[in-house]
């Protein structure tokens, strides 16, 4: 998809990189952790296997999120995409936490 190159001032560029780095490192880990916890509960296979499957996949998910954080067209879009992805596992865990 063609994008108009945006030229950022040096200060804006620094904020942009910092924002994406926070998203990649902390946000990526948080989402991977939430997805692992959620899938461990939700997968329709025996509990121990669900934990194994979810944990095995978690690093691939984390890595995908890191790449996404820097690849998205704007920092805002990177955060929005990540937030969208976090809704399901976070909602699931919150619901479970509230009901038990």
């Amino acid at each position, binding site marked *: 998809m063609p994008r108009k190159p945006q030229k950022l001032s040096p200060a804006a560029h620094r904020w942009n990189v910092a924002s994406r780095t926070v998203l990649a490192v902390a946000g990526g880990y948080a989402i991977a952790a939430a997805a692992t916890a959620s899938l461990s509960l939700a997968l329709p296979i025996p509990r121990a296997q*669900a934990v194994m499957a979810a944990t095995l996949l978690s690093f691939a998910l984390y890595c995908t999120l890191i790449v996404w954080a820097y690849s998205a067209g704007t920092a805002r879009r990177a955060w929005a995409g990540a937030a969208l992805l976090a809704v399901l596992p976070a909602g699931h865990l919150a619901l479970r936490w509230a009901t038990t």
Partner: protein
Amino acid sequence: MNGLGLRQANSWLHTWSGLLLGWLLYAIFVTGALSFFRDEISFWMQPDQHASVAHAEAPQRAMDAMQAMAPDASLWTITLPGPRNPTTQVRWFEQGERRSKFGGQSAVLDGTTAQALPVRESRGGDFLYRFHFELYGMPRLVARWIVGIATMMMLAAIISGVIMHKKIFVDFFTFRPRKGQRSWMDAHNALAVLALPFHLMITYSGLLLLMFMLMPWGVDSAYQGDRQAFFSERGNRKAAGEHMPGIERTPAAPTAIAPLVRQAQARWPGGIEQITVTDPGTSQAVIELRERGAGSLLDRGRSERLLLDGATGAPLESPAAVKPDAFSAIYNVFSSLHLLRFADTWLRWLFFIGGILGSAMIATGMILWVVKRLPQRRKQGSHLGHRLVESLNVASIAGLPVAIGAYFWANRLLPVSMQARADSEILVFFLAWTACLLHACLRPHASAWREQLGALALLLALLPAYDLLQGAGAMAAALTHGSWVAAAMDLTLLAFSAMAVAGACFMKPGKATRAATQPSASAKRIEGVAP
């Protein structure tokens, strides 16, 4: 990144994730590659044992030696001579003594005569193996987290490195020698693509080995953090040979081990790795034979065991193998491929070469960072950050191998009777590494490369020569009995010494700087079998 396309954004990520922990990753890769030969290195670091040769009668002779040395022990473990170490290693525990992996008393016996051999105090290959994932001199947990984070960055660097390449296949067949930056780039690409499956596998499996520490949230949510419950539900086996207290010890003559060994060897192609005898010399004695290497990776290359009555030799019920579920099997395959305990010598070499290619890939990547920024530096004058990267590059890429060479020399030169000898070997390693760092900071860049690579070549080449002068045990065992473990290490040291000479010749003063400024338009593409 704003204003950048997908490839450029990934190029940015690749550059900075690679640079930030590149030096640590290089050290992890080098020590990891060497860890594939951990046992062989440990054996090589016991030069007084080099003349040992494995003999077919070793099991019986070792049992007889144990009977003489430790008749009243509660447990014997006898690790038989094998392709990775031609000595017999024994360990025994007295009655009531706690049985731990490194506890009790131990000895090393000649593979043929079963006479006790001198053992010098050394961590051997274990130091490099531990450094690979626990570094040194810091809490184990902290070190594992640092290594885990570095591994995650490696994964990000690999994936972004693949995405940033339009034509990964064409790039693989492109090499433009003597073109400075372009040559470094081509070398980096070729090394990366050549062993890409290995790099990906070894990085991901490295994360999986630490996964319950790095990503405990699945166990936490499904088991409320009760790891014991999780592991027992996953089907962990109990340790064999647990001592049952309160049973009267009735002396009984042991059965002959040779026929049992022959039976087991007919069943297992790799032969027997270890014999464990519980309550030896009594009527309750139990002999456990453990297979060397195993065919299946699905159960983590876990070898088969046979339990036999120690007095009569009659088979007892052996622990049944547990069949892992699909996801545990995936985990087991990955971790087996990383730990490589099952592998024969050739596969071990293949993985070692993979590890060296990975180290070279990281090294060329970090050199590329420096070379790429040279024209700018020449225009704008020197820059502290740039100089720092240059110095750290030399001190890690050349300095770490120099430090390992110094560690090997300390093993040979420190007096055998010295106090805290093993720690002193490690001290020499770190002193040499620190000296390399200082040297890299003080000398001009090209000279630092040349001098450290030259020092490395000398250190490595003179080790086999020194051993020959001290009595050629390794060569004698190799040439007269075909026992190549220590001699192969000597030859490998010579090969790496030759590579260091080649590297030193390549780093002629001013060459890298000259080449980097050549106009890129003159760079001719040499393409091989482009699709």
